[in-house]
């Protein structure tokens, strides 16, 4: 048994009672990384020296401190800026960005809560991708079967938790980038309501969609971590000035009378039969627990993918203009003129998917096309948002699959961007509407890969999402399964 099979609260108790040392937890992390990260490739940069020094220091205060995450080792997605610790966002253009000058607000909050940053986690370049194959470093592998993708873009964050390298991590989610890899790796991942968590210090991809969120082994830890990182921030004018509830109090195990909506579009033909069966079994479990469910319609779901790619790419084309080889990051050598330097630095520094999306966004925003593409997509976004509002007028939560299928094999979808994008059809509408969504384990495929259940709540109602997720988790054993690292299990 690993120390990381305990919940975060149990670990804190053990620390407080002097049963274990912070050093033991940090040792456990680096030992496991040494054992398995050659296969999993979840980490891009380790913070070992500083983390060990910090652990030794915290061990002196053990038993006295009441800091919320005292001594608990965390992994941080590499698009979240960490002072003095290399931050690449999975891109070559930031491969030499070894000395960021400030911490993201979420990292400040982790530091204040006395957690220990173990290292930075691999990801699709600039969070653009659904398989981690767009990382410009080594692609992350799925700990359940290393021939399969871990999902993306927070593939490193999900795989590191699934593989037991860290007990919890931070990811970011623009169109499913926390929930989809959480589903593929059999862990718990939440995308909070847009505005719930500060984006200050998150390398911006699509600013109206991006949110940072927790990836954990169970729902209780997830709620515990969100309490620490949520809240209004003067450094992010889009962060919401809304009170952060005590999410742990929502974990009552009681869902009697809960009204669940199941969109028929989320169980349509693109969804594999194994995934449908797992979701239907989950709905039956909820009935046994005293909840009720009804089929509803989110009629504009099929337009979400188009809407997302136009809006997200447009915002990305503006956000990624900052990578110009002037102030930080890589610069192409021997350019004669400034314009040549810009173009070549970006051509050398960005991968194909990033270039594709920058060009799509530039096209959608360009003169003569703006109304036809960008504005049209924003109007359809309103229709998609209204779909959710109508359902939440009558129901507490929406439930469906997180992804149409379990994880696919590495290399299977790399050549066709449109097939790759279709992985995200069930997660993207949630970002467009700005509502919170979680993925929790709800089954396994015939070849032993995890299946994720998605639970979606109304704006700022993470409490209902957590309550619903936790009740299912209490009644099932899926979240207790651990991968035996190596080849196929079957």
């Amino acid at each position, binding site marked *: 048994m690993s120390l990381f099979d305990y919940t975060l609260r149990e670990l804190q108790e053990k620390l407080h009672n002097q049963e274990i040392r912070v050093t033991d937890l940090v040792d456990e992390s680096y030992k496991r990384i040494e054992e398995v990260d050659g296969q999993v490739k979840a980490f891009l940069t380790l913070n070992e020296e500083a983390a060990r020094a910090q652990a030794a220091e915290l061990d002196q205060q053990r038993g006295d401190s009441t800091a919320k995450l005292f001594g608990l080792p965390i992994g941080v997605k590499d698009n979240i800026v960490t002072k003095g610790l290399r931050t690449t966002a999975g891109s070559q253009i930031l491969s030499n960005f070894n*000395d960021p*000058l400030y911490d993201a607000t979420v990292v400040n909050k982790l530091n204040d809560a006395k957690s220990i940053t173990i290292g930075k986690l691999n990801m699709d370049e600039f969070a653009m991708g659904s398989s981690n194959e767009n990382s410009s470093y080594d692609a992350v592998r799925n700990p359940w079967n290393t021939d399969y993708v871990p999902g993306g873009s927070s593939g490193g964050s999900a795989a590191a938790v699934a593989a037991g390298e860290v007990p919890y991590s931070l990811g970011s989610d623009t169109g499913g980038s926390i929930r989809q890899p959480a589903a593929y790796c059999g862990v718990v991942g939440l995308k909070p309501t847009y505005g719930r968590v500060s984006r200050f210090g998150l390398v911006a991809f699509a600013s109206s969609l991006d949110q940072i969120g927790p990836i954990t082994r169970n729902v209780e830890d997830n709620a515990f971590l969100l309490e620490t990182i949520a809240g209004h921030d003067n450094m992010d004018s889009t962060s919401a000035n809304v009170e952060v509830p005590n999410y742990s109090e929502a974990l009552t195990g009681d869902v009697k009378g809960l009204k669940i909506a199941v969109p028929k579009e989320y169980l349509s033909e693109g969804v594999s039969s194994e995934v449908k069966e797992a979701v239907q079994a989950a709905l039956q479990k909820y009935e046994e627990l005293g909840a009720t469910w009804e089929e509803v319609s989110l009629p504009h779901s099929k337009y979400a993918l188009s809407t997302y790619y136009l809006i997200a790419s447009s915002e990305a084309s503006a956000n990624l203009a900052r990578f110009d080889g002037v102030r930080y990051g890589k*610069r192409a050598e021997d350019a004669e003129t400034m314009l040549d330097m810009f173009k070549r630095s970006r051509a050398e520094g960005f991968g194909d998917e990033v*270039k594709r999306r920058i*060009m799509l966004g530039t096209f959608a925003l360009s003169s003569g096309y703006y109304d036809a593409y960008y504005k049209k*997509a924003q109007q359809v976004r309103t229709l998609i948002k209204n779909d959710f509002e109508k359902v939440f007028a009558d129901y507490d939560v929406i439930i469906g699959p997180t992804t149409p299928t379990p994880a696919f094999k590495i290399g299977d979808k790399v050549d066709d*961007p*449109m097939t790759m994008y279709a992985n995200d059809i069930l997660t993207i509408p949630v970002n467009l509407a700005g509502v919170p969504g979680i993925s929790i384990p709800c089954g396994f495929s015939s070849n032993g890969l995890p299946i994720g259940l998605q639970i979606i709540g109304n704006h700022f109602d993470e409490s209902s999402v957590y309550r619903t997720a936790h009740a299912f988790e209490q009644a099932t054993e899926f979240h207790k399964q651990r991968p035996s690292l190596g080849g196929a299990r079957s």
Partner: protein
Amino acid sequence: MSRISKDEVKHVANLARLAITEDEADTFTKQLDDIITYAEQLNELDTEGVAPTTHVLDLKNVLRKDEPKEWLNKEDVLNNAPEHKDGQFKVPSVLE
């Protein structure tokens, strides 16, 4: 009918300050055309009179006092730059 021509792809690449090769222009033309063609399904929807969503929360202008405060140290900032000189970022010739 194609939605985007190779010349338009080159034009867009230039606007986005991306150097691309002829081969890349061919590949991107095909791929972007596929994506744009797919995205035109949005034209099935009548959006006459629908207000565009730029932001999901009902936030109005968020204002703060314009007061200077301590932020990053100039030396540290320059040290992250590929080239700097006399306290400023250095770039190749601006004029062709």
